[in-house]
């Protein structure tokens, strides 16, 4: 079963990085898929797990092991409260910030705008 929706439109400001609304703390693990495409050629698929840190009506903040490019469109799967359903969201990366993590690692804060979502039963 699939339901789809387009998130409520958030008015764009002159600064596209600006927050779209009040953010609510919501930490949960999610799964992402990235695709590097050039024209109609697939350069690379990659996926992995990320953490969603907070959410707003127009988007959310992710902590990712690898940064998408600015304005890159990618897919994020988040579980719903029932655990039998999850949402598949299409998002656009608005900005990224690199953070040092542990001794040698790096992680990336990524602010994303929600473009589209579907809810699916597992």
């Amino acid at each position, binding site marked *: 079963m699939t339901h789809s*929706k*387009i998130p409520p439109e958030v008015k*764009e400001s002159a600064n596209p990085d600006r927050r779209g609304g009040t953010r609510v703390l919501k930490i949960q693990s999610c799964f992402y898929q990235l695709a590097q495409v050039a024209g109609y050629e697939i350069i690379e698929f990659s996926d992995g797990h990320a953490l969603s840190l907070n959410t707003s009506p127009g988007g959310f903040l992710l902590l990712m092991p690898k940064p998408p490019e600015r304005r890159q469109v990618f*897919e994020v799967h988040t579980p719903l409260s029932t655990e039998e359903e999850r949402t598949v969201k*299409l998002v656009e990366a608005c900005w990224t910030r690199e953070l040092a993590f542990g001794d040698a690692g790096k992680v990336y804060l990524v602010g994303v705008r929600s473009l589209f979502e579907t809810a699916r039963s597992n």
Partner: protein
Amino acid sequence: MNIMTEVGTAFVCSGHSENMASRQSSPGILVFSRSLQLQYVNRRVLELIRNIGQAVTESGLIVLPTPLLELREQIQECLDERLEANIWEPFEMSRVVSKFGRRLLFRGFGHPNRAVSCDSRIVIVLEEIGSAEKDRHQQAHVRMTVPKMQTTGTLFPTNS
């Protein structure tokens, strides 16, 4: 909640089997710009279009099936007309494609961007539909949850 612990756990526990399961039950998704530039495609799309005889060439080029290209152009035309008429509601068009005993539901969404019209997008969601019964079940549940969404297309079978 300790964020550092959560981060470590989240990144370490990226189980392959979970990823595979997630992929298997996911819809195929393609995103195009208003000018039809491919912005995103997931692996599931390639699996689904392979089932109806289309795939990726050896050089890595994606060959999209004709019904999908037609749907995309239909949505682009509609999107352009709506942008010209200052209609900002998203809309949906869909079609069912049957080939090699497989049935795929193509759902296309026009997503106008009021602020920057050239940033308007076309999203196409691909799902496999099995038996007629399952098809009826799915059709009953395929709907937009946003009241403003307009469904301007109708489902029609394409036997090719």
